């Protein structure tokens, strides 16, 4: 499959060019955050505080990596289920977040917000944590170190493989023929 090489920060021009189903290879900086870090960020915003990490133009990878064994920069580092971050996502998009990488469905609210805030949702290979760790070249903790695997990390990645799952035009990689669903439920 022909993958498009893109680099973070994500510009509006790049986001406008992406369509659901397009394979990409991402290089540059990713931030990591999952359940606990999202909760803290959104609570901080609720108190009117500035975030410890500026999200403008950034891409968040939903991952809680396993610890780095000796000689490696990171352990396994595959995506977690994105839907759990849905309740926290819109306030972060409002802070300028431009991309998210995870696995699985997003809520209709988040999908609609992608168009509003001009951001894109990518999916990557769920359960291929060993393989994906190879694209991660450097790692450091940026915030919430006490959360361990749930801390906010900076990943420097090279050619990190992903697929555009939801674009700004309402396109989704998960749309299936409804006839197939009917066929499945109507088994004899």
């Amino acid at each position, binding site marked *: 499959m022909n993958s498009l090489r893109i680099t973070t920060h994500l510009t509006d021009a790049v986001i406008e060019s992406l369509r659901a189903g397009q394979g990409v290879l991402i290089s540059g900086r990713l931030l990591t955050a999952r359940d606990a870090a999202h909760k803290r960020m959104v609570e901080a915003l609720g108190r009117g505080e500035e975030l410890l990490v500026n999200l403008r133009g950034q891409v968040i990878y939903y991952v809680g990596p396993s610890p780095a064994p000796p000689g490696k920069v990171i352990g*396994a580092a595959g995506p*977690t289920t994105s839907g759990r971050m849905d309740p926290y996502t819109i306030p972060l998009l409002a802070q300028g977040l431009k991309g998210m990488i995870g696995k699985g469905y997003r809520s209709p609210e988040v999908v609609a917000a992608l168009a509003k805030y001009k951001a894109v949702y990518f999916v990557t290979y769920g359960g291929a*944590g*060993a*393989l994906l760790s*190879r694209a991660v070249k450097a790692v450091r903790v940026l915030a919430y170190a006490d959360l361990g695997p749930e801390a906010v990390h900076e990943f420097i990645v090279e050619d990190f493989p992903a697929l555009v799952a939801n674009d700004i035009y309402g396109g989704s990689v998960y749309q299936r023929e409804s006839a*197939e*669903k009917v066929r499945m439920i109507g*088994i004899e």
Partner: protein
Amino acid sequence: MRVIMAGEITTVVARLCREVNVTLGEDVLRALAEAREQEESPRGRDVLEKLLTNAALARAEGLPLCQDTGVAVVFLEVGQEVHIVGDLEAAVNEGVRRGYSEGYLRKSVVRHPLDRVNTGDNTPAVIHCRIVPGDRLKITVAPKGAGSENMSALRMLKPADGVEGVKRFVLEVVEKAGPNACPPLVVGVGIGGTMEKAALLAKEALLRPLGSRSDDPLVAALEAELLAAINRSGIGPLGLGGRVTALAVHVEVYPCHIASLPVAVNLNCHAARHRSAVLPDGIWRLIGSAADRKGKNDVSEEKHKSLGEKT
């Protein structure tokens, strides 16, 4: 009577935790390779190819297959002629603690479901213990990731719903899970018993070697029908479309109340991880793929690789 020191149990549990998270069972690898041949969608084939590469890489580099190294679910079959010196549950938890630390595995357990502070060592394990005839101890470690566990479900059907109701529920769970549970799935189904029995049956069904069929012809036919139906869904590998949505469907049944029809569906992602060891004749042995737990206590040890650790 056989005497087993708790410390031996700790050593073996630690080793099982390390190995099971790094090395995928031969049955799963075979099923993924077959799926790659069967899959028609290019995207699905690409996913299956990557999953096989991931398994080879994890094994070669000693990395976990998936960063979600799970909550450690531990099944114990304790022979009634076994005497354990020391605290059995503490020994298992110490094994999990050591295995997850020494193996650079992720610590994914919080001390309380509501205050959500990480225990830092992946304990406590979820332990299921059964007393069986004989003088052996069998330990199975089956780490369970949350992606697939969160999409699992239980429903108390009415007897009038019958087998059609069971099928509809299983398909509904798989459909709702879509990409979230990391298909191709292993689908464990427990039918009958009580609410908690059905859930346990569903989890135990995940321990069967992939591709095995139930001894009960009625259940075996249901397994085959469900697998075919799930693979007509079009969900495909990682939900990106394709023919292979499940690698296997395993159904376990148990007698139940005249008024009940409990059904539990425990989904497992493609990284179907479980590893067992038994203590017969003073030698710990590894079992690549746990045998059916139901009435098969005489697991033929000969064909299983020895851990090489004399106790």
